[in-house]
């Protein structure tokens, strides 16, 4: 569905069902140079099990109008404005990678609006090597290839995503190429990864979180090493769910991630 936030169009995938703001809401925020389509299986499951679902395209990413925001803080303010536009006061805020930082910051800015904080494939802080930031300026396709290389742990993860017969590395590469082509080639890549790198107040934000927090970490994640999430997990008093696979855990381990989120949201998650 389309929303308008601060005069700009925002796209939200609603899991194949019309969005109902009276249901418990879960908002999914994708990572750098991705879009809502990394969440579609989870979004469909929750939409068909008693939830209102908003899987967003961040500004400047595919279907949401740009420009992209340069900071996690700006994205967090935007996320809260999206909730307003959708008529939602409180929601479970779920994010992957960059999106997990946006969810964290939004929950810290408006603690009363987050029922749950769900951070997937995350660490805080989330520094990005200067070499990758430089590479995206000189050769964005090489930078995408580098991210793909480091984001999958296996050559044949099953059952694949969104369905059998998908070559996950190729699919991830094609998605990022489409997103950067849509968002101004290397500029968007640099903007997103710089936002991760520059967000240095995440641990302070974690201290302000009031809602239940869950981290879903992939044991072979080379982009956001699980050990680098220990401090934020402790500050959040988070339940840590460890699943097999690499950084793109929703693609490599869709069932394990679903199980983790169902567990995180409690018995009411399957209504």
């Amino acid at each position: 569905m389309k929303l308008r936030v601060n005069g700009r169009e925002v796209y939200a995938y609603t899991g194949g069902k019309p969005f109902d703001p009276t249901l418990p809401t879960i908002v999914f925020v994708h990572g750098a140079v991705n879009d809502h389509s990394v969440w579609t299986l989870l979004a469909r499951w929750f939409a068909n099990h008693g939830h209102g679902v908003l899987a967003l395209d961040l500004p400047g990413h595919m279907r949401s109008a740009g420009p992209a925001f340069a900071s996690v803080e700006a994205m967090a303010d935007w996320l809260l404005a999206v909730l307003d536009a959708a008529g939602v006061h409180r929601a479970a805020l779920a994010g992957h990678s960059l999106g997990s930082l946006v969810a964290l910051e939004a929950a810290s800015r408006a603690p009363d609006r987050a029922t749950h904080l769900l951070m997937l494939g995350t660490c805080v802080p989330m520094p990005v090597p200067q070499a990758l930031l430089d590479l995206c300026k000189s050769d964005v396709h090489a930078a995408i290839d580098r991210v793909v290389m480091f984001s999958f742990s296996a050559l044949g993860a099953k059952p694949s995503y969104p369905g059998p017969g998908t070559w996950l590395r190729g699919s991830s590469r094609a998605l990022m190429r489409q997103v950067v082509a849509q968002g101004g080639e290397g500029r968007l890549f640099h903007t997103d990864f710089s936002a991760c790198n520059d967000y240095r107040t995440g641990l302070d934000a974690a201290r302000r979180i009031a809602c239940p927090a869950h981290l879903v970490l992939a044991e072979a994640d080379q982009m956001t090493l699980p050990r680098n999430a220990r401090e934020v997990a402790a500050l959040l008093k988070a339940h840590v769910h460890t699943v097999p696979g690499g950084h793109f855990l929703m693609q490599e381990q869709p069932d394990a991630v679903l199980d983790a989120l169902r567990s995180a949201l409690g018995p009411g998650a399957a209504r």
Partner: protein
Amino acid sequence: MPPGPSDPGFDTLALHAGAAPDAATGARALPIHLTTSFVFESSEHAASLFNLERSGHVYSRISNPTNAAFEERMAALEGGVGSIATASGQAALTLAITTLAGAGSHIVSSSALYGGSHNLLAYTLPRFGIETSFVKPGDIDGWRAAIRPSTRLLFGETLGNPGLDVLDIPTVAAIAHEAGVPLLVDSTFTTPWLMRPFDHGADLVYHSATKFLCGHGTVVGGVLIDGGAFDWSRASRFPELNQPYAGFHGMVFSEESTDGAFLLRARREGLRDFGACMSPHTAWLMLQGIETLPLRMARHVENAREVVGFLVAHPMVAGVAYPELENHPSHALARRLLPRGCGAVFSFDLKGSRKQGVAFIEALKLFSHLANVGDCRSLVIHPASTTHFRMDDAALAQAGIGPGTIRLSIGLEDADDLIEDLKRALKAAERAA
């Protein structure tokens, strides 16, 4: 980000992509999952699979674990996002077309095609309201001029039948994209080892996997691969992909998957409804073939070059159509797009009559006379006395075939033995004058 592994190379992907040791048994080789269907864990699990809330297998017409490994491996080798295994190469072509086109749609196709593809486009699809305009593959202005508002795709072969015209994929893809339509390529003769059409701008690729991918002349199958670069969400010609589909709960495929919308629709509609799926046993044999594809293709090309060299110099041979030869019309394109070689299927013209062509065929001992290509064994066919035997010489000429045209598919035997066989047969043809 610490140092880590690099993206695997082609030979590694040919062995490992899409598969891992079996989690249930530890079997190192991929098991053949010969089962029609898969047990649901619960009613809720069943519903979530049917509703695309979970990934998994339901029924082997739609997906199967052995087929999925083959599909992922082919997508990996081609540089695509995924693929669908089909009952044959023709089924793959039909699946591609029926996913994108319906009554009132139009296709622009290269005229240099495999006969089966030509039949489908020229005679069968018009019965269902799909028209095709044929253009010579090298006629760049012709491609552009043939596009209509109803055109849904451009189509050609990497190496076109029968003369091995090399399709100028970068140029034809650019023309397609200017018009907002995808380029579909039949890559059977080249395989991803010789060329990856997505790297040159193609959007969809299919193979008759029966040929070099299988490599052993044992099973019939096809595969349709999506490059994932075409933006279906913005293309006004494809409501099948960017508008709600009543046949699957109003699903909008381009919203479900930004890079895999085409495959979602093709599997959820075309494979489900038309049902031209691959047997898991066939998929397993295809994977066996693909594991040695890099080694075999190198040898196929090496042997083909030896045989071409012999034929070019033989007094009974009027000409050899092989793009590595400087006199071939596609020589320059081949150097650019096919640096590893131009495959192992080609035609040559015997000096002489149909009768001499028959004598040549019948004198061969190592080459098998049959209607296939891409086997590990060398194959031969004489179109004038077999596939095109009803045509007179004028009609043959129209199709680019002479009374003495012979098509060879060079296998993996010792090149010296193949040349010896050809030498004997050429002598027999000479005597039959």
